[in-house]
């Protein structure tokens, strides 16, 4: 009896969940967005997601093998990187570009730092940044969703072929840029963007694979919040700060700047707020730190969208805030209940 008696420090019981379970919940949370992606972009969505997940997992396995480390695929974090990378590239991206992005995301974004828990930047965003820098054209070519009747007249004046389409964010960017144009006939009004709210909500619009359907992302985000997979601080801070920043622009000049609701639902704002910025490894530990991080992500995104050259800013703002996460943690030390102890 009791030959296998166990000795360990207390506590002797634990909550029955694990890192893998948390990651599995994130994957389930991404499922509605995947369904929406398949609905709007058909086979491309399936192909890109499968390629990215497979290559991410393979890269992680190979990295572990070369470093003689135990296989870490079981924690499912490589799969999440794959899914998020696939969701944040244009549907028309060729498969070989997706492979390059996935390899870079895992190998340089994660494994060189020592694997899960040690990476400074969000691996999926590293992969996407690499693709943006390398294949700028491909990363800004947007497919028309399969659900749009291609014989219908397009909103875009230029693209009558209806193979590609400007994203709503590109329209809002045009409106900002055309502020300086003297010729009234060439001016683009922000109301074009504001009229797209219904399509933004359901996802029938050009954009990255998994970020077009706001409703799917919101469902996934609520699932993550309800299961306690993420805490509310970062999503709330991102969305609130983006709302405030875009409101300022909207109230200053509503013909040039699109409405706050438009900005919250367009581009990578929702997938960023719920799935990318909330990556625990690359975001701060404390609540106060999470607020600062979230406000930084939301604020920087809006700064890039409204003032910068790019029409979308989620990727850069997440990467920038990732880089100062250690600093935030350093300055947001929590004080114990009852004040600082006299050491």
């Amino acid at each position: 009896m009791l030959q296998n008696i166990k000795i360990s420090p207390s506590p002797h019981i634990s909550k029955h969940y694990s890192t893998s379970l948390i990651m599995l919940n994130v994957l389930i949370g991404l499922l509605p967005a995947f369904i929406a992606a398949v609905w709007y972009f058909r086979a491309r969505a399936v192909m890109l997601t499968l390629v990215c997940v497979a290559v991410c997992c393979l890269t992680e396995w190979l990295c572990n093998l070369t470093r003689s480390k135990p296989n870490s695929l079981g924690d499912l974090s490589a799969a999440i990187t794959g899914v998020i990378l696939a969701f944040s590239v244009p549907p028309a991206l060729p498969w070989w570009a997706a492979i390059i992005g996935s390899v870079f995301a895992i190998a340089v974004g994660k494994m060189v730092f020592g694997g899960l828990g040690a990476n400074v930047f969000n691996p999926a965003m590293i992969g996407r940044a690499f693709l943006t820098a390398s294949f700028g054209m491909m990363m800004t070519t947007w497919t028309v969703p399969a659900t749009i009747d291609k014989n219908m007249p397009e909103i875009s004046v230029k693209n009558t072929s209806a193979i590609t389409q400007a994203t709503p964010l590109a329209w809002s960017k045009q409106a900002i840029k055309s502020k300086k144009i003297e010729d009234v006939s060439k001016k683009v009004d922000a109301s074009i963007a504001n009229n797209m709210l219904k399509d933004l909500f359901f996802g029938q619009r050009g954009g990255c694979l998994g970020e077009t359907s706001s409703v799917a992302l919101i469902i996934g985000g609520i699932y993550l919040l309800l299961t306690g997979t993420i805490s509310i601080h970062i999503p709330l801070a991102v969305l609130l700060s983006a709302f405030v920043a875009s409101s300022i622009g909207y109230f200053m000049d509503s013909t040039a700047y699109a409405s706050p609701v438009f900005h919250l639902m367009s581009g990578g704002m929702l997938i960023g707020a719920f799935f990318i910025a909330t990556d625990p490894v690359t975001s701060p530990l404390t609540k106060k730190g999470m607020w600062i991080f979230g406000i930084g992500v939301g604020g920087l995104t809006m700064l890039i969208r409204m003032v910068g050259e790019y029409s979308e800013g989620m990727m850069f703002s997440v990467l920038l805030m990732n880089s100062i996460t250690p600093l935030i943690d350093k300055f947001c030390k929590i004080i114990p209940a009852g004040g600082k102890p006299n050491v």
Partner: protein
Amino acid sequence: MPVPKQLAIMLSQHIGAICRPVVNKKDRVTAGQLIGSADAFVSAPIHSPVNGTVKDIALCSHPVLGRAEAVIIESDESNQSKQPCADKFDGRFNPDKFTPEKIFNAVRNAGIVGMGGAGFPTSVKIKTNPSSPIRTIIINGCECEPFITCDYRVMLEWTNQVVAGALLIGKALGCGDIYIGIEDNKPKAADAFREAIKNIPAAAGIEVVVVKTKYPQGGEKQLIKSILGEDVPAGGIPPMIGVLVSNVATAAAIAEAVVFDIPLTYRPVTVSGSGIKKPGNFYAPVGMAIGELIELAGGLTDDAAKVILGGPMMGFAIADLSTPITKTSGAIIVLTEKEIGKAKMLGKETACIRCGRCIASCPVNVNPTRIAHAVKHNLLEIAEDYYMSACIECGCCSYVCPANIELSGFIKTGKILVARQKKLMPK
């Protein structure tokens, strides 16, 4: 229950100086006789629970200290198991019959220590100290760890005795502001106390406070926060803000010691967990082997995997079933693999994903992951910089950690390492 044939009574059952044995090998002892004398102020004497012969004074397995000196007593046939004296307390109890000096001396001589687990000598706590007078007394009826029910039984069956003990503590400290804190999953205990307070005229000032059931509600700092809304300074003790917290079983032992001059030699013990065939509560003599208590509770089931002295959250894993119980052993919990969790059973630890769950769960707001990782890499200054000394070692962080990191274990190790560095503790 039968009296065990042999008892190993530890000479260190409390915080403070270890007792000096005052009996020799082959001496005859009687129940209640002093066998370990406490010479220092912060210490508590030790008595024999039974009539018998001293077989040896030797090193034995100690639940916390590894191996420590114990007086081994062989009990003889004349023994009868000690019965609780709760039925001798009724509405006529009046604490004014006793002076504070008499109460202090009785508590000191009876060797009473905090029976909730800490084992701090009670006499030290109830000695009036002009520099930090006690203005509030809280009787701790919050048994917040899973499985443990011995304090619940004490509250239900020894209600009057606990109230008497509370009044005696109040008398000793000249303090009339007394609360009894009970978790809201034990309404029967709260009712029993309300009834007892009604029946004892002297107890009219005692207030029963029902608090939320959560872990670690029974931690003295957490209970003070719940009842009085005040924070004890981090790394400090309740007397710093004029509060004394005492466990219900300790209060009962005080009443017994002051009124009947009976030393603390028996205590209620919960034997429970899925690895026990017939879980129950026992009134057991100090020094009884854990294995014998488990036998009384029907023995171990086949899938028993871990024996714990104390609760599953803060107790100590036991390797040797001959380890005796001490005055602070409120429970013996035997867990199965299913309860422990597979990852914990295998000791399988994965990388910290910085999710912050440990921080969110921490009742005293420290940063467990930072402290634990600093200790892991022997960076004790960083650990202290993150307020390691404020940790109350409740184990919540390890409980919630999805990566199954022994955060609490690392922090405890870090505290010991720091104490050694400062030469507060021997190597």
